Each structure stands twice: as structure tokens, then as C-alpha cells.
């Protein structure tokens, strides 16, 4: 029973009952404890049933009675078959309570056991980790800074702090091109002059930040490329290099267009000229990098002219500067004069500018008109040329017919034969063409089919590749998940208390099972023994009866003749009767013994029920109720 009690107490503790350490068996349960345990179990099993009942016994007797009744009702609702009533809780006896608690513990939901198989959520894990960390920190006493040991430094002092400051690093490898293609100078730089990355940043504190930042940027670039390649690149059916170069060209074109539209000189912004010239320069540099630098050696007309203007510009600027400088020392006039002069000059210049712009607009309009008219004229010219050539053709034909006219008949025959010959030739050629054409068409069809087949195949393969990619990703994710779960379970397993050895329990269970088996065997043996004995007894009684009957008959026959035999017959009868009596007595003794044993058992169970103490309790409670009643009655009377 100890084993059962320990398991019961353990499960009750898990259900939330506060059981003292020194309570080892159900025998030691008090009424209060029983009520609390039952109510906690009820709450766990069915919150609706248990929530209406308090976990503590109320002081009033009638309230206690009511609580007991409701608890008994709840237990019966759950399906408890045994005898139960308020007395079970108030005047407990051990076996009843044990069976009731066993029933309740069996009814407890087993969620907790199942939940441990599922991976705990990330947040739960995190919370556990946080709780453990806080516990560890709380365990350390707080010390003022002057007394701190290195052990405390990590958690109790803020320590030196730096903000995350990443600096660009110069790396001894290139992400874009394999190292073999690098220029010799670059390699030389890497080998001789490049500092190790850890001494590149200006402050040593930003080394880790820079390294981490660099790594993350590389990773994210790779990831982005992967995503793009999987979504668009594969479908384009190009090699990665082709795809990249094509994309680069596309982007460059777009940027160039954008910049060109932005660089269009606008008449309303005077200050834009400088920035636009910068932009055109930028555009040029774009072109330069796009074609790989050969523009410098070859050069287009555009770049030449640009170069020309740009080389001229500094000279111009220098001239202007010189002019300004020469103007400066000669300015001996008063400031006002200077100002007035400048203003006059300014207005003059502005006027000039306006005039010039007006002229420009006029000239621009003229140019537009002229270009339109040039277009028109060139169109006309083309049309004229067309009609001219047509006319020339007709003139040629007519000339030939006129030449043929004098010898008309001969020429007609000749012409007819010529026509016939050419017709024949045409037919011949057509038949030949047909001959050639048929196989060619067949070939064409065949090739077309082949081509479409290939295309189908390739698209199928593409979709397969995509599927494979998806699968790979999925399985990688799953593997990661499983791995983390495995780790978590291992840590959990390590934290689990080791003393609850499963094998010991199973061993004990196996022992119990074997014991039960042995007992069963013994019982069957005893049963068969009893049966045999019964049989023997029956056989013996039968034999006895038969022998008695035969002897009786024999002796009775002789008894009529002989006196001594009659006497012996009498003895025989007496003997028989005595023997039956003896047997009867023995049987009676057996039944009485059995009765005695039954009674003894009953006495034991009654003793176990703590009847005396319970009776005393009942008496006390009865008195308490009577007192309560009388108090109530007195109150009513007073009221």
C-alpha cells in the first residue's frame, strides 16, 4: 500500500494540493486535507464542477455537511461507483478514501505527459531561459563597485560600451571576379600593402562590428541573388553569367535614360547648366565603364567634342579670373560708383540675355519649321523618284514592242515558241521544285516537332528543378527544426531528475506481475486439491454407504439365526451412527472456523474504519449542530 500511497500523494501534489512533507500515507490524511485534495482534483478534471466549492472546510457544522454533500454529488457525477456521501469526507476511513483518490487521480487529464512530446514553443523556451538567468542573477548578492569581483562584473557593472560603428573593410578577395582575373597591381596590393582586417578600422572597438556587418551584407547579397535566380533567372534559361550581364546592361540603360531626361537643359533654370554638365560627364563615365575603358583609346565624336569643351572650360575660367583680377586693382572709384556701374552692367547684361533668349527662341522656331519642310521635301523627292522609275520601265517595254513591230508575224511565232518554251520550263521547274520541296517540308516539320519536344522537355525539367529547390528548402527547414527539437529535448533530459529510475519501476511492476502469476497458480492448485479432496470424500462416503449396506444385509440375515450376531449387528448400527455424528461434527467445526475467520476480517475492517473516533466526532458534531440549532432558535425567539 505504501507504493500506491506515494504515487497518490505525488499526483495530488502535481494537481496543486499542498501536502506536507511528513504525510507519507493516506492514513495520515485529515478531513481538511481530503477535502482540499478532492476539490483540487475536481478543478483539474472539470473546472465547471470544482469551481463552486471552496478548498477549505468551513467552521460551521451545517456548512461542512453541505460541502460534503456537494463533493459527494460531484464525485458521483464523474462516475464514481463506490459508496460515497458526506460521511466519506467528514468521518473518513482509509480504504474508502484511498479508492476515491485513486479514482480521481486516474481521471486526471494526462495532457502534461503528452505535451512533453511536442516541441515547446520558442517563446516558452525563451521564458525559461530568462527565468533561469534572472534566478542566477538573484542568487548573486549585489556588491558596490569597489568590492566587485570579476565574477560580478559581467552582470552588475555596465562595462565599457561602444555603439555599433561599422567601417568599410578592404578585403583581399573580390566577390565579383575570380582572383585569377585580377590585375597584377591589385594582387600586389593585396600581398604587400593590405593590412589585416583587424587593424583596418581606425578604432579597435569597431573591428567586430565591421566584420559582422561585412559578413551579413555578403550573406544577404547571396540570398537575394538566390531568390532572384530561383524566381526569375531559371525561367530565363540563361547561364548565371549571361543573366547577370544582361541585367546589368538593362539597369545601366535605364539609369542612363533617366539621367539623360534629367540632364535636358531647361530654359527656365539658369543655374542648371553646371549640374547638367556634371551629369553629362557622369553619363560619359557610365559609357566608359560599360564598354570596358576602350573609349579612352578610341573615342567617339561625342566624347571628343565633350573633351574639347571640358578642356576649354578651365582655360575660360582662368581667363575670367584674370579679367576679374585685372579689374580689381583698377577700381579706385568710390564704392557707390562701383555699385551703380555694376548695376548698370547687370541690367545691361540681363537685357542682352533676354534679347538673346528671344532670338534663340525665334531661331529655334525657324529651325523647327525648316526641319519640317525638309522632311516634306524629302518625302516628295522619294515619291517623284518612285514614279520616275516606274515610267522608265514602261518606256522600255514600249520601246521593245516598237522595235519588234516591222517583222510582226515572224516575231509573233518566235515569241509564241519562246512563251511555250518558257511555259514548259516553268512546268519542269515547278515539278523539280515539288520534288525538292516535299522532303524539305518534311524535314522542316520534323525539326519543328523536335524543337517543340525539346522545349516541352526543358520546361518540364525547369518545373522539376523548381520543385526540387522547394523540396530542398523544405527539408532543410525541417531538418533545422528537428535538430533544435533534439537539442531542446536533450537539455530537458539532462535537467530531469535522474533518481526516478524507470527501470526500477518496470522491474517492480514485472515482479508484481510474476507474484500475481504465482499466486494464481497456487490458487488453481489449491482449487484442484480441494476438488480432488471433495471427490475422494464423495467416493469414500459412497464406498462407506455401499459397504455398510452390504454388511448390514449380511449381518441382518445372520442376526435372525444367531444371538451373538444380533449383538454385533446392534454394535454395527451404533458404530455407523457414531461415525456419521463424528463427520457431522467435523464439518460443523469447519464452518464455524470459517465463520470465525470472516468475523475476524470484519472486525479488522471495522477497526480500520476508525469507528470509535469517528463516532466520537459524530457525537461532537451532533452536539455542535444542536448548539447551533438552539442558538438559531434563540435568535428567532429574540427576533
Amino acid at each position, binding site marked *: 500500500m505504501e507504493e500506491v500511497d506515494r504515487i497518490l500523494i505525488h499526483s495530488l501534489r502535481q494537481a496543486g494540493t499542498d501536502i506536507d512533507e511528513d504525510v507519507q500515507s493516506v492514513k495520515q490524511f485529515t478531513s481538511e486535507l481530503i477535502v482540499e485534495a478532492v476539490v483540487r482534483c475536481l478543478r483539474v478534471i472539470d473546472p465547471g464542477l470544482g469551481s463552486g466549492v471552496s478548498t477549505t472546510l468551513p467552521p460551521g457544522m451545517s456548512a461542512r455537511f453541505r460541502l460534503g454533500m456537494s463533493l459527494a454529488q460531484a464525485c458521483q457525477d464523474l462516475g464514481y461507483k463506490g459508496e460515497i456521501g458526506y460521511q466519506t469526507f467528514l468521518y473518513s476511513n482509509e480504504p474508502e478514501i484511498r479508492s476515491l483518490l485513486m479514482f480521481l487521480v486516474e481521471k486526471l487529464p494526462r495532457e502534461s505527459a503528452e505535451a512533453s512530446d511536442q516541441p515547446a514553443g520558442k517563446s516558452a523556451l525563451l521564458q525559461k531561459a530568462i527565468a533561469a538567468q534572472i534566478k542566477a542573477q538573484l542568487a548573486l548578492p549585489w556588491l558596490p563597485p569597489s568590492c566587485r569581483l570579476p565574477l560580478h562584473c559581467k552582470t552588475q557593472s555596465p562595462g*565599457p560600451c561602444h555603439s555599433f560603428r561599422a567601417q568599410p573593410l578592404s578585403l583581399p578577395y573580390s566577390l565579383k571576379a575570380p582572383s585569377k582575373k585580377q590585375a597584377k597591381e591589385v594582387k600586389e596590393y593585396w600581398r604587400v600593402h593590405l593590412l589585416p582586417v583587424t587593424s583596418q578600422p581606425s578604432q579597435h572597438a569597431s573591428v567586430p562590428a565591421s566584420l559582422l556587418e561585412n559578413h551579413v551584407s555578403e550573406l544577404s547579397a547571396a540570398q537575394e541573388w538566390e531568390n532572384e535566380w530561383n524566381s526569375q533567372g531559371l525561367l530565363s534559361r540563361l547561364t548565371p553569367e549571361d543573366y547577370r550581364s544582361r541585367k546589368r546592361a538593362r539597369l545601366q540603360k535605364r539609369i542612363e535614360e533617366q539621367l539623360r531626361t534629367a540632364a535636358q537643359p531647361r530654359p527656365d533654370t539658369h543655374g542648371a547648366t553646371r549640374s547638367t554638365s556634371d551629369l553629362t560627364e557622369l553619363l560619359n563615365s557610365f559609357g566608359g565603364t560599360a564598354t570596358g575603358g576602350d573609349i579612352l583609346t578610341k573615342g567617339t565624336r561625342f566624347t571628343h567634342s565633350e573633351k574639347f569643351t571640358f578642356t576649354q572650360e578651365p582655360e575660360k575660367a582662368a581667363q575670367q579670373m584674370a579679367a576679374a583680377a585685372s579689374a580689381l586693382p583698377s577700381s579706385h572709384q568710390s564704392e557707390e560708383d562701383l555699385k551703380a556701374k555694376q548695376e548698370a552692367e547687370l541690367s545691361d547684361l540681363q537685357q542682352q540675355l533676354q534679347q538673346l533668349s528671344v532670338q534663340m527662341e525665334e531661331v529655334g522656331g525657324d529651325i523647327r519649321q525648316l526641319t519640317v519642310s525638309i522632311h516634306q521635301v524629302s518625302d516628295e523627292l522619294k515619291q517623284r523618284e518612285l514614279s520616275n522609275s516606274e515610267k522608265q520601265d514602261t518606256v522600255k517595254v514600249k520601246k521593245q514592242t516598237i522595235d519588234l513591230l516591222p517583222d510582226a508575224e515572224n516575231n509573233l511565232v518566235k515569241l509564241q515558241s519562246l512563251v511555250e518554251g518558257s511555259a514548259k520550263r516553268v512546268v519542269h521547274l515547278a515539278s523539280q521544285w515539288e520534288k525538292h520541296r516535299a522532303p524539305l517540308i518534311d524535314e522542316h516539320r520534323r525539326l519543328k516537332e523536335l524543337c517543340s519536344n525539346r522545349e516541352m522537355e526543358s520546361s518540364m525539367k525547369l518545373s522539376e528543378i523548381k520543385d526540387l529547390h522547394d523540396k530542398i528548402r523544405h527539408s532543410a527547414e525541417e531538418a533545422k527544426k528537428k535538430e533544435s527539437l533534439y537539442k531542446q529535448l536533450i537539455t530537458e533530459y539532462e535537467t530531469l531528475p535522474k533518481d526516478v529510475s524507470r527501470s526500477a519501476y518496470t522491474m517492480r511492476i514485472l515482479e508484481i506481475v510474476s507474484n500475481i502469476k504465482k499466486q494464481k497458480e497456487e490458487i488453481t492448485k489449491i482449487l484442484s486439491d480441494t476438488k480432488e479432496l471433495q471427490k475422494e470424500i464423495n467416493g469414500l462416503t459412497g464406498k462407506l454407504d455401499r459397504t455398510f449396506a452390504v454388511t448390514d444385509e449380511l449381518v441382518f440375515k445372520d442376526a435372525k439365526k444367531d444371538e451373538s450376531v444380533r449383538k454385533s449387528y446392534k454394535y454395527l448400527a451404533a458404530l455407523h451412527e457414531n461415525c456419521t455424528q463424528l463427520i457431522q461434527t467435523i464439518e460443523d467445526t469447519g464452518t464455524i472456523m470459517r465463520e470465525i475467520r470472516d468475523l475476524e476480517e470484519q472486525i479488522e475492517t471495522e477497526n480500520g474504519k476508525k469507528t470509535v473516533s469517528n463516532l466520537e466526532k459524530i457525537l461532537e458534531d451532533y452536539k455542535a449542530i444542536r448548539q447551533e440549532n438552539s442558538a438559531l432558535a434563540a435568535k428567532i425567539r429574540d427576533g
Partner: protein
Amino acid sequence: MELSDSVVKGLQTLADPACFDFRAFTAFTEVAFDSLLSSRTDRALDLPELKKIDQALLKHCHVATTTFILEGIKQNADKSTISSCLEDVKFDSERVDAFYTSYQKNKRNLESLLSSIDRCPPHITDASWRLEYCMKNGHVHNVNQPTFLISFNTEDGGNEGTSSDVNFSCTLEQLQDLVGKMKDAAKSMERATQL
């Protein structure tokens, strides 16, 4: 642990016995850890063991190794993660063990190095108080109110551990409110441990 291609390449070079023999490998890993922790690293790679290796390759390996170490510390990688990562880039078990022992040796310092990339509010190191009783002031003749002058001594990690004072005054009720809130905070902290 996710590693970029360049890091993987650098580590593969490091794992190659034709490039780094074991002596050079151990010297190199020591240098990598030291270069992260100490600030004078300009000539760190000028070791006699590493003389015969191409300097550009050496520098590449250095970038890869330092990055790998920092990532490992950042993600609090345990032995199985580190060794599986290194085995993926073809480290043999001897090198993995050598690397892991240095990793373990320097882990604490590196952790504090990474956790120093932070910005934290000043920590309180001491508190002192004074009771002030105001009887009257220039405007009111009869004030008769006690106030508390509280001074917190704080320590700021951002400015190399300089300490500064936070001063304020409060009435009794305000002080009680403050104390109550502090107690509440401590209590919730304890509750948080009992999950």
C-alpha cells in the same frame, strides 16, 4: 550557422594541409583570436610559421576565420555546431579540436567584446538621502514642510565608467510611491523566475 561563400572558401584554404601544416594552423588560429582581442595587430601575420604562405591567401583566411569566430560567439554556438560547420569545410578532427579549445579559451573575452557593442543607461551604484525641513521661504512665512533630498550615484559605461550624480527632491508620499514601485519591480522579478 550560415556562412557566406567567401568565408567558406577561406576556411577551406585553412583546412587544406597543403597550404597550412598543423603547426602553421595552430599559430594562425592563435593569431586570429589575438587579433580580435588585442588592439595592436598591424604585424600580427608576420610569423615565422606563416612565412611561406601567400600573403593574400593568408589575409583571406584571416578575414574568414575572424568572421567565423565572431559569428560563432554571436550565436552562442556549442561544440556540435562548431564542429559540424568546420567539418563541412573539410577540417579534420585534429584541427577541429585545436580550434575548439582556443575558441573555448577565448569565449568569455570575446563575449564581453561583443556585448560591449551596446548602449546602456547608467547603472546606479549608491544612494544617499537627506531630510530637509522648510520652515519659511522668501514668499511664504509659514511653510513647515519636510522634503527629502535624494541623490543617486550612477556609473555610466559609455564614458569609460565615469560616475555622476542624479539629484532630486520629493515629498514623503512621492518617496513612498517610489519605494512601493521599486518593491513591486523586485517582486515581479522574483515571480518571473518561478515559471
